[in-house]
């Protein structure tokens, strides 16, 4: 249908308008703010300062590098574990067994739970006086009064596990959807050729899932990079800024110290990093190769 018509433009107009006002314009204004000194509490100092915010960020702010490093660690560990566990889970619930529909509903359900609610649930579970570790200690496993969120040695794994609880179902759902598109004859042919279970997984399943794995991993990496609500409510970035990610640092700059100029410069740094991911994403997904 190559008729020249206004129809498609009318149809996408609401989307374009929303994107222009709430996505494009804000990005432009972040770019502008990043070149300014702009603190709500000290308006007399506001003004254009060129790249001073970026100089400060790169050379005078150890917390920037620390938060960036933690962001990287967070994304790699979280996405890696979610992918592996999500794939295993998808393979399991793709098998035929009694109660499969029920099992799927149950194991996928944390996906629908918000970051704040996840925090609420796990705070109940982790709390030192009435949580799961206290219960285990009563049964003689571990020490009573263990505070996994307060101890610098355990706060990272405790936070990772919490986000895994909510994040694994995302991979499991996407990969299960893709598993179901694998034609059964491929497996039958492989079996006829004498391929065992592992061999069939490596030679049939994995290659078929390749695109889905690449896309879901990259999308998830971006989302985990941007994830604020869970860490913000669970640890608040502590103890001692140990779990502060870059977006959390930005949010604190904006909310606590009202330093919009410097916060915007940090945001731009985040953009550049995400842009790198976007390009990678678009290339790997072979965007535009469609005729």
């Amino acid at each position, binding site marked *: 249908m190559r008729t020249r018509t206004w129809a*498609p433009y009318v149809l996408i107009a609401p989307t374009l308008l929303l994107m222009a006002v*709430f996505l494009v314009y804000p990005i432009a204004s972040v770019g502008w703010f990043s070149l300014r000194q702009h603190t709500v509490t000290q308006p007399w100092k506001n003004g254009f300062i060129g790249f001073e915010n970026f100089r400060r960020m790169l050379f005078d702010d150890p917390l920037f590098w620390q938060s960036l490093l933690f962001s990287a660690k967070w994304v790699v560990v979280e996405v890696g574990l979610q992918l592996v566990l999500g794939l295993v889970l998808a393979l399991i619930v793709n098998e035929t067994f009694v109660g499969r529909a029920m099992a799927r509903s149950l194991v996928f359900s944390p996906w629908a739970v918000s970051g704040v609610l996840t925090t609420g649930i796990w705070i109940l579970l982790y709390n030192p006086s009435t949580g799961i570790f206290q219960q285990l200690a009563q049964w003689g496993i571990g020490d009573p009064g263990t505070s996994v969120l307060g101890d610098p040695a355990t706060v990272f794994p405790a936070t990772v596990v919490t986000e895994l609880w909510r994040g694994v179902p995302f991979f499991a759902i996407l990969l299960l959807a893709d598993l179901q598109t694998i034609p059964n004859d491929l497996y039958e042919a492989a079996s006829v050729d004498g391929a065992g279970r592992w061999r069939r997984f490596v030679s049939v399943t994995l290659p078929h899932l390749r695109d889905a794995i690449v896309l879901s991993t990259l999308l998830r990496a971006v989302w985990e990079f941007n994830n604020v609500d869970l860490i913000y409510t669970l640890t608040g970035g502590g103890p001692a800024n140990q779990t502060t990610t870059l977006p959390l640092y930005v949010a604190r700059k904006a909310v606590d110290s009202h330093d919009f100029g410097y916060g915007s410069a940090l945001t731009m740094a985040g953009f550049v990093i995400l842009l790198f991911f976007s390009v990678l994403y678009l290339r790997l997904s072979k965007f535009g190769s469609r005729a």
Partner: protein
Amino acid sequence: MTQTLSRQETPVSPPPPAPPRRKKHRDPSRFFRLYLPLVLYLLFTLIPFYWMLVFAFRPAGETTLLPWPITFEHFDTVWNDIGFGLFFQNSLLIALGTLVTVTVFAVMGGYALARFKFRGQRVFLLALLCTQFIPGAMMLIPLFVIFKNVGLLNSLTGLIIADTAFQLPLALILMSGFVRNVPVELEEAAMVDGCSRLRAFFAVTLPQLRPALVAVGSFAFIGAWNNFLFALMFASRQDKFTLPVGLSYALGEFNTDFGALAAGGVVAAVPVVLVFAVVQRFLVQGLSAGAVKG
């Protein structure tokens, strides 16, 4: 997407018939590669939920593992005293509003992408994809300024608009995949029979999109229901609080009142978990029809 399209013609394929069960052939390895990991994972998923339920229904001060004697005092506290009744209503209005706007705009835009060729189409699609890399958390500063200037602070409408703006791009991409999976010939046949394009769409294509509407609509509902940062920043008046915001305060303020926290959590969890249990099947079917491989 073309590749996927050729593989799968209909938007929702019926599940393949279950392979005939082999008689009396018990495979012992099934226990270790299927049931054991499944049970372990179920425990990991369900123990936290159970812990919340126990706290919510157990009288304060008890430490039993069963919520017995059962009590509803915590629900009374959070719903009436702390105001979760109002937060629930706010969250519901925002989620339903977002569901409607996202679904309608996604169908419109998705139809445009799937059925027309127009100048700027690829740029539009590229822009939609790029939005997936815009961090909502980092947009708080400029969005706050915009909302203040147009008077949308402390307004449920403002939150619906913000949620819609951030969810629409992905919903639209998904929807265009679904529309593309509905054979265009059906629509053309209706148009040959004298229908306008609009009538052909409503009579022929829209009914075929039902699973897609369910999937995209529930995505939007859950996303808006769960959104925390926008609600925290743009609705600071307590009568406009949403459930996540109410919960986040409960996390800080009622440090010792775990019963109230748990009851608030149950209030926030029940609607989305129910919605999700119903649509989970559509979600997997819909995604496996190839829509996700933008």
